[in-house]
């Protein structure tokens, strides 16, 4: 998050004159609009905002935002962002990456960004595929995914972006999906969080991985398949008309989560967990909660700030410089010196 005097902007102020070059129907369009809708609401100023991306369809994003933007190289956006932020901590930095860009080639930079806790937002567009290179499977592709590079189906176990983020030390982990109305709320919460805010956004690659998220993202049956987490609220989903209200509870024997029925709104009786965004143990369970048996956990799963990297660096630079001057002559003359007097023949 970044303090700035709120200024009035409108969605239009955040659009560039560049033709948007995603496939018709791509989920990226919806995410772009959501971001452009969010910026005015958070009082962002275009000139103090920087979008930094790697390579991929998703990473084209910066070209469409009327801000400063850097479309870097594959997987390196977090490292570039670290340099930008250390050079100018006042900038509001948004990293745009994909499941390949941020978790395959760029996984290590993502990990260290989260560990150091640079104050920025990371939007990971997870379409479970390599879009730009025409549809090879990615680290998040489900087992058995048929692609040009896995004609007999992929065999490796998929990575779980949010679990990876937590294991890397993330202090803010959230989930949303491209066409969700609530995406802007998630983005706002991410922006409010001081430190690296990691947001996994399920995104529909209509060409190479069509509708893989339909099972929970489609409006029909949404309330049964989506668990939108609200801090301080019980973890409830479902509804009376759709087979009853349900909740997430903990099996205190196995210390595993389970789904419970909530009778006439009494979630306490049913032992439904009340969401505490600062509870890391629960966060671990939520990010690994298998969809199907459970609904998809969405919204802010975890949010517990700690000191940011650039604050610490700036503070140390200040402290170390305290009372010292940038006197170059002094520096050059440091250590033991000796003087050669006039008169000695020139070399």
């Amino acid at each position: 998050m970044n303090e700035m005097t709120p200024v009035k902007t409108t969605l239009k102020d955040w659009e560039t004159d560049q033709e948007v070059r995603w496939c018709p129907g791509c989920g990226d369009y919806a995410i772009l609009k959501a971001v452009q809708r969010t910026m005015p609401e958070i009082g962002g100023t275009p000139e103090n905002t920087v979008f930094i991306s790697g390579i991929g369809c998703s990473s084209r994003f910066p070209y469409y935002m009327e801000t400063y933007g850097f479309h870097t190289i594959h997987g390196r956006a977090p490292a570039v962002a670290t340099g930008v932020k250390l050079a100018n901590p006042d900038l509001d930095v948004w990293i745009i990456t994909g499941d390949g860009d941020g978790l395959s080639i760029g996984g290590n930079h993502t990990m260290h960004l989260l560990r150091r806790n640079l104050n920025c937002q990371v939007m990971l567009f997870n379409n479970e595929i390599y879009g730009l290179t025409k549809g090879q499977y990615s680290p998040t592709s489900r087992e058995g995914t048929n692609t040009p590079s896995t004609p007999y189906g992929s065999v490796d176990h998929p990575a779980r972006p949010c679990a990876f983020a937590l294991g890397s030390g993330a202090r803010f982990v959230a989930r949303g999906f491209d066409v969700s109305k609530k995406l802007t709320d998630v983005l706002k919460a991410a922006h409010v969080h001081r430190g690296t805010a990691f947001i996994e956004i399920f995104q529909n690659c209509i060409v190479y991985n069509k509708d893989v998220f339909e099972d929970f993202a489609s409006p029909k049956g949404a309330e049964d398949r989506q668990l939108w987490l609200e801090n301080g609220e019980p973890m409830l989903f479902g509804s009376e008309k759709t087979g009853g209200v349900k909740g997430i509870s903990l099996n205190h024997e196995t210390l595993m989560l389970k789904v419970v029925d909530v009778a006439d709104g009494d979630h306490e009786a049913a032992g439904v967990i009340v969401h505490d965004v600062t509870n890391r143990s629960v966060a671990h369970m939520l990010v690994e909660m298998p969809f199907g048996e459970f609904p998809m956990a969405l919204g802010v799963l975890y949010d517990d700030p700690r000191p940011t990297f650039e604050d610490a660096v700036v503070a140390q630079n200040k402290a170390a410089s305290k009372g010292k001057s940038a006197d170059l002559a002094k520096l050059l003359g440091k250590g033991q010196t000796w003087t050669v007097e006039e008169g000695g023949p020139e070399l």
Partner: protein
Amino acid sequence: MATALKEETPEPPKIPHPDAVVVRFAGDSGDGMQLTGGQFTLSSALAGNDFATFPDFPAEIRAPIGTLFGVSAFQINFGSRAIETAGDRPDVLVAMNPAALKTNVDALREGGLIIADSGEFGARNLSKAKYESNPLEDDSLAKWQLLAFDISALTLEAVKPFGLGKKEALRSKNMWTLGLTLWMFDRDRQPVVDWLNTKFAKMPDIAGANVAALNAGHAYGETAELSAPIKRFHVDAAPASPGVYRTVTGAESISLGLVAGAQLAGLPIFFGGYPITPASAILHHLSRLKEYGITTFQAEDEIAAITSAIGAAYAGSLGVTSSSGPGIALKGEAMGLAIMTELPLIIINSQRGGPSTGLPTKTEQSDLYQAVYGRNGDAPLPVIAARSPVDAFDCAIEAVRIATQYMTPVMLMTDGYIANAAEPWKIPDLTAYKPFPAEFMAEAPEGGFKPYGRDANLKRPWVKPGTLGLMHRIGGIEKELDTGHINYGPENHQAMTDIRTDKVLGVADSIPDQGVALGKPRAKLAVVGWGSTYGPIHQAVRRNIAAGKDVAHVHIRHIWPLPKNMGELLKGFDRIIVPEMNTGQLKTLLRDQFLVDAKPVNKVSGQPFTIAEIEAAIQEALS
């Protein structure tokens, strides 16, 4: 290089005055030879000698005691005349144990002096050093002068009053040895005493013990029974231009040059690094200089190191990254991004032995190909090479100038030898350097803002994010002329390729013509070098000229683009040889650019050229 002591002492004066002497301190990694060498160097400096040093330590952090691969050595060549190399062959070898003797004695010139600690020549150490019999006793060292006595015992004796444990006490052996050598060369002990007292201010016993050992060693020289062949020498002060001097290593000098360059450009520095031998020292130096507007970032790898520096350059800092061969290889892709986005970035390569992990602690010049040619696509960038620790200072400033005045990444080449070697340095007067303030575009100029518009140098504008009204997007995909938008068009790609090429070639307009370091411009033979081969080439050419040979020394700082007169200059010589610590890389550049028959002289052993080797090459080229 040192002339043999004997030659220096035909008749009295009581203390002979050789014009140069080479001393090598060799011992176990734990024996503190680098410290000893460092202090002896300082004392030489204070004595007004010119000098050059060559620290040569093992790859292992602390190899097991007494092993051959655990030997650490420090060589210094000091004289009353200009010194450019650490010397081919030592006149004096200090060997603290059998392994040190075994690995170093063959380098000692015939008739040279060995000072050995007989206390360390027990059976165990002898076998570790793979000696069948004790060399101090059999006559295998006959062709050298041998001075062996039990330095360990003498040290223990000297430091007894401080009641240290034996292990602790023996740590002072190196100071005892230093004391003796200071006596041998008629030096003042006080500076070392002062240094010891400050270094061990918190541990007065240790300080006292070391001082006592130092004095004991010195006294031993005084009182040693006359029978021993121990002589004293006085090396006079070398002529030097008046001023204040200090010693400097290449790593220090590059760091200081960057700070100076950044001040001349009026920029903060962002340094993104990842540790690697022998480049780490630069990261270490800069990390202590926060008050000079320097932010250092130890990244997770070399790729993050350079890309973070690119990000910082984008945000308005001078981006700097530094590594050695393997790490530079990893940075190749990102260099392309800096070239495409035209951001000011300095990439420092402290070269070491290759390929692959190679020989991390040995010196080499085998990354020139990588520097000039080692990227995908047509990806030109300026390349500068430092020739000595002192020269590295100006090279760093020059790199900053080019990077900021042309908006381009610049590769600055140094090597393990320069990084670790020390030289006396006349502290420069910064007011003598012309500032070259970097400009940031603050508002749209006449005719509108063009992120990829050009000035006379073909430089594009530098715009800091945060600047009102100049928002724009950059990236690694081919840019459109002026607008900087994505453009895959044929004409545009051709035009942008030409601009990138011409911009870098244009740097040649701002650099001095190539001069001749020694000898005549149209000499019979030119010895053309770059980087740390300067010393041996210079001395070898000087001797040949003294011997009446028509030889010249050309040493190239600007590897790319080459100075504009280079072709003309080279074509003026009948013959050209190019000594390099690689299989012939600069030679490729010269032959390609100028079609001159530049003949390679290659040494790829991890060791610097000796003067004798260059002399031999010259002789062969002339015959």
